[in-house]
């Protein structure tokens, strides 16, 4: 589903991703682990098309299309969803207004009919109930005054509402206590499907106790330094990232 080949990404004159190659087939969950500063978030932002994250060479193909040629909103409409490490607060923009605008923009870009307000509210109510989110929270300005856990839950809620096909979870476990982590992981696991792929970016192995990956990749110094099965995560937890940080450039 997602095929990244020899990707190089530059941020503010510094090359952060230096020749990354990765294949993520549909139906699979891959974890990206690595030390701080390895380029994990940079990879996530580059795949989502964040301005300032300049791809200098290499390719990323998504469902046979050139992902890097699309604008961020086009990628979103095609089913790319990035769960932010620090979800943004939007003062004055009620959650429901934001969600409906986003959902309808995605539908419009795909040539589908817009969803009418009553049908949207029904859908939002169902999805919120499943994630134990108080519906009144959605009437408030998006994420404003929410705790770290609430913001992450709101990200998972949006994920379930938009039904994306490629999920990129950027440090979704950061700032979560164990209960919040479980709610988030349950939401992610419920989203597993044969036509959906996930890239789970994390510093710690902890999240992978809840979201079991099919493959684990070690990202160090801007490239994949090692790949393996789920056991690799445990090995990293025991031994740390030191041996990968010394990979010659």
């Amino acid at each position, binding site marked *: 589903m997602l095929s990244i080949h020899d990707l190089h990404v530059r941020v503010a004159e510094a090359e952060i991703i230096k020749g990354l190659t990765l294949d993520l087939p549909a139906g699979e969950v891959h974890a990206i682990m690595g030390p701080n500063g390895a380029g994990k978030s940079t990879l996530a932002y580059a795949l989502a098309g964040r301005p300032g994250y300049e791809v200098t060479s290499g390719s990323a193909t998504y469902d046979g299309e050139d992902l890097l040629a699309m604008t961020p909103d086009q990628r979103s409409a095609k089913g790319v*969803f990035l769960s932010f490490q620090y979800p943004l607060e939007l003062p004055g923009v009620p959650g429901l207004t*934001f969600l409906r*605008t986003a959902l309808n923009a995605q539908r419009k870009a795909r040539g589908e009919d817009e969803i009418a307000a009553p049908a949207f509210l029904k859908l939002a109510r169902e999805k919120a109930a499943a994630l134990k989110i108080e519906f009144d929270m959605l009437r408030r300005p998006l994420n404003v005054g929410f705790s770290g856990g609430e913001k992450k839950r709101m990200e998972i809620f949006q994920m379930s509402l938009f039904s994306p096909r490629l999920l990129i979870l950027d440090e979704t476990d950061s700032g979560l206590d164990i209960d919040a982590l479980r709610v988030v992981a349950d939401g992610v696991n419920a989203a597993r499907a044969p036509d959906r792929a996930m890239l789970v970016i994390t510093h710690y192995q902890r999240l992978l106790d809840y979201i079991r990956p099919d493959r684990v990749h070690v990202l160090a110094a801007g490239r994949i330094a090692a790949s393996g099965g789920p056991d690799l995560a445990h090995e990293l937890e025991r031994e740390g990232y030191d041996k990968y940080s010394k990979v010659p450039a």
Partner: protein
Amino acid sequence: MSLGSALKTGDVAELPSRRDEDWRWTDLRGLIRTLPAASPPGDAAALKPGPFDDLADETVTFLNGRRLSGAGPVVISADASRTIALRFVNQAHGTAHHSALSIALEPGVVLTLLETHEGAGAAYVADVELDIRLGEGARLQRVVLIDEADDAIAVATAEVELGSHADFAQTALTRGAKRQRFETRLRHGTAAKARLDGVYLLGGERRGDLTSEVIHNHLGATTGQLTKGCVRDQARGVFQGRIIVNRGADGTDARMGHHALILSERAEVDAKPELEIYADDVSCSHGNTVGALDEEALFYMAQRGIPDPEARGLLTEAFVGEVVDRIEHEGARDIARAWVAERLRAAQ
């Protein structure tokens, strides 16, 4: 010196110029070389319905400076109208006119004044002078929509005097003009309350100027002020807010905020918040910010599928929405909100 006196005397030297500190950014003398001829009467049959008609018990209309019905001051006594639509309609082309009205609220009465400045002509010069007096404990809510023609020069000035315990709440929304100024000069009574809010949404080469002066001479009065503006293209916004707390006005509470978004490189905002405090026991503050839309928020919205122009519109609407939400009158608030949304959409 004022536009009104220049129009009355026909003397351009009466026009305020950049030499007056308060008119530094809205220099009329430099702009108007000769005063235009007086506007002819407008065509009352061509009047379109005003935006606030349905909410009002009574409508007072000035057409090219002429009042269409009634005369003399509007006095609100206990048995008078509760909601008045006040319309200043400019049908003139290249001519000038002046409108004046006095409004007096007897003690304890409540009035909602829904005011519009409507441009139905072109290149006119329009001046409006209001004299508003609130008796003891009277309450007035004033909501103003300013929609002048692109090439108009329009100035509206209100002198407001509050009796003790009177309550005056004002929200003015403007989209500017060639030159447009909305000025409020308010004198507090003892323990009176004033809210002076504003919104400016300027595009093209429009200019909008929201100026106010509030004087606290008595004990325990409160002033709250929140103005927000968005400028794009080559537009220019001006905010001048002066609060004077004179000796003896102890217990004054005054807060002023002005926040602007500059949405293009060639747009400009000039702001001058001033607090002059001569009393000891007061609580005063002001905050002033000028910035751009948050790029991180824009990317977040794009990641969720919202195209850039739509995302900018949502954020801008949310930004000025804080001011609109302070309008107490529900019907007027809804109309103001729609007014803002429509003008932001048109600008995209």
